[in-house]
């Protein structure tokens, strides 16, 4: 069997607290999973369950207290352009225009100007940013800002995308548009995607698999396979297969007594 693209092995993370006696906050406990090449894996859990910490460790921004992450079989210890990160806050440089933001990665790689521009142009078209090249981030809507952030990452041609609730701050309609856009990009470029969300519908709509995490300490409590056909259309949410998965996840969360109100897309169930 082929090796997984990303292997997360026995990850623990405890945040030291200033008071010695409390021994710190246990954020992650025994996290084990792998992501296969070209797969979209969704990490689903309530706010504060440590899913962002998992992403930060894979991205190389934070170090685990125990355990390790292998990417392409190699242990990672620092951030790198092979793993593009999309944050909830777009993270665009406000002093650069959309185009200049998109060119940033090429500058870091020392690409020729001509080549960088051609590459930027390609992803600007793919992401639907034409006509907005010279806008500064603050002049763009939330959805457009995230598009720039995605294009900026794609220019580096990473084979892994780490997405931390990238559409969490967008309105429902824009979020749906962005999800469809992301699936379109994924079908064209086939990157491996780790997608973090607290929105059950988003996880089912995008993911090949869903890992559900529990709240503090963050543990993976269950894995779901999403067998819905691809390419997926938004109508898929009305199918019985979709409803079945959603029901199972809801029941699972109810079983572990999670706070439903923090899971978006779900009315409080009592």
């Amino acid at each position: 069997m082929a090796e997984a693209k990303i292997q997360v092995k026995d990850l623990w993370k405890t945040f030291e607290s200033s008071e010695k006696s409390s021994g710190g906050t246990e954020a992650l406990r025994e996290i084990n999973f792998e992501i296969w090449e070209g797969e979209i894996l969704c990490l689903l859990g309530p706010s504060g369950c440590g899913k962002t910490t998992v992403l930060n460790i894979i991205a190389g921004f934070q170090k685990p207290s125990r355990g390790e992450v292998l990417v392409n079989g190699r242990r990672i210890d620092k951030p790198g352009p092979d793993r593009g990160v999309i944050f909830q806050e777009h993270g665009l440089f406000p002093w650069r225009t959309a185009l200049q933001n998109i060119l940033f990665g090429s500058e870091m790689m020392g690409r020729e100007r001509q080549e960088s521009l051609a590459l930027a142009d390609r992803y600007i078209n793919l992401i639907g940013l034409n006509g907005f090249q010279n806008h500064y981030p603050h002049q763009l809507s939330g959805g457009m800002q995230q598009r720039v952030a995605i294009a900026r990452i794609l220019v580096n041609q990473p084979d892994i995308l780490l997405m931390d609730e990238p559409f969490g701050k967008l309105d429902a309609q824009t979020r749906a548009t962005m999800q469809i856009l992301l699936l379109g990009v994924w079908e064209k470029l086939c990157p491996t995607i780790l997608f973090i969300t607290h929105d059950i519908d988003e996880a089912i709509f995008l993911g090949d698999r869903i890992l559900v995490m529990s709240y503090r300490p963050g543990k993976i409590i269950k894995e779901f396979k999403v067998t819905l056909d691809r390419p997926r259309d938004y109508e898929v949410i009305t199918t019985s297969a979709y409803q079945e998965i959603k029901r199972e996840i809801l029941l699972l969360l109810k079983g572990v007594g999670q706070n439903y109100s923090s899971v978006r897309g779900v009315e409080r169930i009592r």
Partner: protein
Amino acid sequence: MKTETIAYKNIYFVYAFSLFLFFISWFALASRTIPLFFPSPWLVLLAFQEMIKDGTLWGHIQISLFRILTGWAIGSGLGIPLGLLMGDIRFIRNMLNPYVQFFRFIPPISFVTLSLIWFGMGETSKVVLIIYTTIFIVTINTIAGVMSVNSIHVQSALSLGANRFNIFIRVIFPSTVPFLLTGMRLAMGNSFMTIVSAEMIAADKGLGFLIFTSRLFMQTEKIFVGIISLGILGFVVDAIFRFAINKCAKQYLFFFKEK
């Protein structure tokens, strides 16, 4: 027309009205006393005219401005890299912070005599004082800028392949621009204070010298000329600086418009 009713909303009208009131009060005050004690606007205007005609005013302005701008430019040129390094590298910050925290409370004026002993009566001693005035304000503001860099920007840059040097040049420095510009504007204001004190004690030219020597000859209206020139000069220099920022560095100021 509703012009009369909304006139107070027109900013230029309000400026003009305010100035009008100011000069009326000045005239009224001056009329109740002698020119030696409090000259009227008219006398001050005449003094202005005379000093502009014989070129002495421009001479004083020129030399004061030269000292301020030279010292301010050098001080900023030193303070910005110093602040960036101190903000970014903890070792350098810890090494230098005690001195910055110590010297920033010592007013430049207290160094006037030392500066004269060390650098002589010439321009150097005044320029050095302005450098001293500028450098701490610019450094401290720049450090504050580095400290408040958005960590998501740094993380974004890292995951886009930036190394530490690139982050310093292309993320930290641009994020710091609004802060260091604020520091430079504050430092400009303080430089005016320093130069006047320095010229009062040790100079044979400059606006501070003009104000101080006019006292000896009981030329109160010339003191007013010096004071008013300082105000106008400061206003003009700051306006030019702001204009230049808006022309050349506007994109960096959008930093504050986020969120």
